[in-house]
């Protein structure tokens, strides 16, 4: 985009992966320079941090997706992605860092360019609203027999590589964004902050140890937004693919009980119940037609409370 003479990328996108090679390959492809629009591989880097499992990515294939894509494999004794996030940020070089805590999230094509634009507005948090692929959020869809095979078949038919904004046509807002993006979001699964801010916040809190890291992502989002301007990209999305995540359809997980435990852990660590940060977002970006229905939903939900 600019400043190409500088070796240091403007943005590092840190993607944490665990036991989801098929979904993660899609995610990484949506972050590749061949898919992201109005940017080049010199503008940003993608740091893939995979926690070891029995289903690993192929590093060679990952790196083939772009010269700006790096791959790190690490051991993780626990189930939280926090240490992987912090490790990925330490290994990254960008002036800003974007955190994708769940490697199953495919991206729309303007995320990188719009995040780079937002950097010009000073210290801020850039948040991408979250969606789930399919007709229901995955924790509900799984009860109807929804699974990864069905989803990947639908993705193949969508031809998202030609136009990534088509992902909006087979998605619903995630639970943390269910009221749209004009009301407070509980979290973002693709959020960017200046590296200095990431460091001053102490990164992701590795004290969150419940399954999947509990509220560690919500916690970082809350702490970051509480001290910054919030910029929301209304026409971009990160789209959760079904993979049996801790709170999004994992077999044998009592989700209600797990959420209670997560709330308790947050209360213990922060001495108050979790609540989304209350901050009016600055909107940035052109509205793609496929995203308009979600803008309308956001407007109507906000108007109800205005």
């Amino acid at each position: 985009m600019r400043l190409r003479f500088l070796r240091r990328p403007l943005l590092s996108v840190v993607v944490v992966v665990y036991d989801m090679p098929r979904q993660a390959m899609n995610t990484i492809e949506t972050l590749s320079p061949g898919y992201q629009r109005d940017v080049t591989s010199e503008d940003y880097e993608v740091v893939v941090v995979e926690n070891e499992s029995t289903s690993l990515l192929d590093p060679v294939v990952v790196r083939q997706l772009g010269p700006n894509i790096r791959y790190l494999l690490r051991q993780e004794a626990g189930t939280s992605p926090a240490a992987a996030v912090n490790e990925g940020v330490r290994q990254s070089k960008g002036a800003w860092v974007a955190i994708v805590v769940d490697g199953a999230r495919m991206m729309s094509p303007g995320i990188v360019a719009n995040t780079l634009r937002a950097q010009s507005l000073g210290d801020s948090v850039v948040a991408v609203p979250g969606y789930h692929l399919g007709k229901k959020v995955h924790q509900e869809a799984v009860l109807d027999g929804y699974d990864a095979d069905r989803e990947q078949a639908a993705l193949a038919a969508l031809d998202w590589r030609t136009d990534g904004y088509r992902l909006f046509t087979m998605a619903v807002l995630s639970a943390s964004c269910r009221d749209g993006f004009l009301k407070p979001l509980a979290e973002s699964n693709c959020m960017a902050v200046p590296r200095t801010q990431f460091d001053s916040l102490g990164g992701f809190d590795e004290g969150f140890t419940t399954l999947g890291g509990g509220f560690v992502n919500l916690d970082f989002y809350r702490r970051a937004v509480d001290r910054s301007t919030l910029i929301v990209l209304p026409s971009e999305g990160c789209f959760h693919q079904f993979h049996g995540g801790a709170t999004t359809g994992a077999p044998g997980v009592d989700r209600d009980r797990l959420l209670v435990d997560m709330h308790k852990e947050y209360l213990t660590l922060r001495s108050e119940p979790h609540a989304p940060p209350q901050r009016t977002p600055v909107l940035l970006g052109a509205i793609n037609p496929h995203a308009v229905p979600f803008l309308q939903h956001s407007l109507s939900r906000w108007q109800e409370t205005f």
Partner: protein
Amino acid sequence: MAGDLLMRTLLSVVIVVYDMPRQALNTIRSFSAGYQRKVGTDDFEIIVVENESERLLGAHAAQAVADNVRYFLQPNVGHSPVPALQFGVEQSRGDSIGLVVDGARMVTPRVLSLALAAFRITPHAIVSVPGYHLGRTEQHRNPNHDERAEKALLEHIDWLTDGYRLFEASVFFRGRHQHGFLLPLMESNCVFFSREAYALIGGVDTRFDMPGGGMVNLDLYKRLVERPEAQLFVTPGEGTFHQFHGGVTTKVDDKREQMLADFRDQYLAIRGEPYTMPDTAPRLLGPVPGWALPMLEFSASCGVRALLPA
């Protein structure tokens, strides 16, 4: 933002005034640092160019609003704002310029900080502020809206305390934004651009010499946003609000349609082709206060109808 020398970009707001002292004073107040948020007087200047009339705003009143107001009185040549506009740009010192061709247009409190933000994103920014008319309907359709009614309305909403209440007292100007502001716009009555972009397109075209300037504003906007490198931003939570003043195209007038036809004929004569809207789609920039929600909803509904594949 104020005092941040590294990030500072001086912005010049050029306001053309003719025969509208009350309205122009409101407009200048709405651009002042005391009303605009997150900007200081060092960040911008206000250039007021008043064309002579029997009802002058005058230098004293204009400059009493703020220290960064510069006032110029000019002869009223041909009842067109174009010479004054050109003069105002010549006098301005900013790296970027905001143009208010009709001095009766008040604005909301984040217009300047968002314009400066857009120029930090890209020097090729064009920033368009959506237009509204004070009153219950657009003023050229509303014979009951007059100066007295409008003064009462503005006093009632106490706009100087909360400028976003201007949305409460106004309607979206559909004449220029028929499809809302997610789709390409015809013009802006408050538009910001870089001095370089203005120079590259050759500035305002002084051949538009009809009353009110004819289609000069549409022409300037079209040439600015159709430059390949232009990046158009629209501020969904901000507005420019037309006050009643018996303007050329904003008063109830049974000769309005003929006059608009004459404007189109002049455009054809100057440009050699009929006017067509630019097709540059904007990016949104800025927060959306609750009062501005209906217009964004309208824009979104137009966006669905016009853009989604059949």
